[in-house]
């Protein structure tokens, strides 16, 4: 709670703005079924390609579906993917990172493996894995987690290495604390800041990459709404119905931008040594 209090006290305009935008987007995503009277997948042939109006706040698409409805269901899916990827990368990253950082005998093997994985751009690993496992929400969650976890593992590893020889850990070991106890109570508790910051950036990256995969047709498959898929559909109607392509793009930018802002802010706030890109 202290954390939240000091966050508010900080009155950091960027963090606050980012948090407010994120809250709005989260609410839209969470309450999507309540907020709209339309069905995201129901066609309505009489109302094809209608521009924005009072009835259809952001217009309708080529099947007469309400764009606002699809937009909030799309960001709902993005948020689900992003959140799951954050959790999975954190879990795998922490396990692998702690193993490498805490046990020197494993370090070399794990690090070479991570080096090999990091030679591939994340999106390429994700595209290939999504192609293997097939399209679908759960497959891209695993594909993206697999693509991102090496970086998280490296961050955890270096945090663990910098902490494990500090005196308080040594004294815990001297009084006979077991490895597990030391890892959970002394080391991981002190690595939360870099993990939290990286998790925030992973969230942003996952939303971007999910959209890219859905755009390529190997992410969330139509007719299920996804922001990337909406952009693919809107491509053919760019000249006649530009509102179709603007709104999903703006939604992606808003959520990714505020997550990146939040990550920057958290980094400056949690770790005064790491000079971030906003406040110095």
């Amino acid at each position: 709670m202290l954390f939240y209090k000091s966050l508010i006290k900080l009155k950091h305009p960027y963090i606050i703005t980012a948090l407010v935008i994120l809250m709005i987007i989260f609410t839209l995503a969470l309450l999507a079924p309540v907020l709209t009277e339309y069905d995201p997948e129901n066609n309505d042939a009489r109302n094809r390609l209608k521009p924005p109006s009072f009835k259809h706040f952001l217009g309708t698409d080529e099947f007469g579906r309400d764009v606002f409805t699809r937009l909030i269901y799309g960001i709902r899916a993005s948020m689900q993917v992003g959140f799951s990827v954050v959790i999975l990368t954190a879990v795998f990253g922490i396990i692998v990172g702690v193993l490498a950082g805490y046990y020197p005998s494993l370090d070399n093997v794990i690090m070479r493996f991570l080096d090999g994985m990091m030679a591939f751009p994340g999106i390429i690993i994700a595209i290939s894995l999504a192609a293997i496992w097939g399209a679908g929400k759960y497959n891209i969650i695993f594909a993206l987690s697999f693509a991102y976890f090496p970086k998280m593992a490296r961050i955890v590893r270096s945090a663990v290495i910098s902490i494990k020889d500090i005196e308080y850990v040594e004294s815990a070991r001297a009084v006979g604390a077991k490895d597990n106890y030391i890892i959970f109570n002394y080391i991981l508790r002190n690595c939360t800041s870099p993990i939290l910051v990286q998790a925030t950036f992973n969230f942003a990256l996952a939303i971007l990459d999910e959209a890219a995969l859905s755009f390529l047709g190997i992410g969330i498959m139509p007719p299920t709404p996804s922001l990337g898929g909406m952009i693919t559909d809107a491509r053919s109607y760019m000249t006649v119905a530009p509102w179709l392509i603007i709104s999903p793009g703006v939604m992606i930018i808003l959520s990714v931008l505020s997550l990146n802002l939040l990550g920057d802010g958290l980094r400056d706030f949690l770790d005064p040594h790491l000079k971030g890109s906003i406040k110095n």
Partner: protein
Amino acid sequence: MRNYIIKRILLLIPVIIIVAVIAFFITNLMPGDPVRVILGNFATEEQVLRLEQELGLDQPLIIRFFSWLSRVIRGDFGNSLYLNAPVSEVLLNRIKPTFMIAVTAEIIGVSLGLLLGITAAVNHRKILDQFSITISLFGISIPSFWLSLMLIFVFAVQLRWFPVSGFKSFSEAGLGAFRYLVLPSFTLAFMQAGLVARMTRSAMLDTLKQDYIRTARSKGISAKNVILKHALKNAMLPIITVIGHNFAILLGGTWIIETIFVIPGTGFLAINAIMRRDIPVIQACIIFVALIYIVLNLLVDISYGFFNPKIKYK
């Protein structure tokens, strides 16, 4: 120095092996039987078995891996299942467009990023700083595929300054080839600029606080010289590290951008190969990207000595 480089290259061997393992196993776990896809629905069991034998697909996975690895080391990626040509030849024909776009994007991105980053750091907490931060944040937050569609809409469809898609080499179109490069390169460059600007800004802010900068200023060296010669050179280390790492992101981006602009490069080849399950081509494309990343980061490591002579290669 030479010993360091040799040691650094030797350390790459396990990494390259892991890269090969990942490339092989990712692609061989893909669903869809390539033999059935090639022969079509009306193939007899006998034909299927014969082609499986020809392609070596009847062997256990681990044996296939080692025979594949020994061929790949000699530069033989096998034949494309669809293009009826050796994969290495197909890939080599496609490198030029990717190379041109990636290098143009890198040049634009890094120059723009350095400019934004230095401007931000020098005008710390002033309006120009805010402006640069905002631009670089947008750079890393805009989905490249959406940005490219927007650019196409405005500059190709409406204003007709640039072609909507396609690619021409300099030998075909002379200087007109640049018109084909502008939109795809700029899309890729925008993100690079954002990443480089963020790193440049924080590295420069760090260096500008150092004592030797104050000393340089108090000696009366011009502001321009202090910033470019004293500060930037010392801030270069983290910046070139970021540039080395991010070139991979750029190459990953070409997979999507080449697909949108219909540019006959390696990325377009890769995406098509994935859609068609053309496994040898996918393997070659993945390894190609990883190798470029590895070589580039080797060069980055070696260049550290140039930017910071304090680093002794032991």
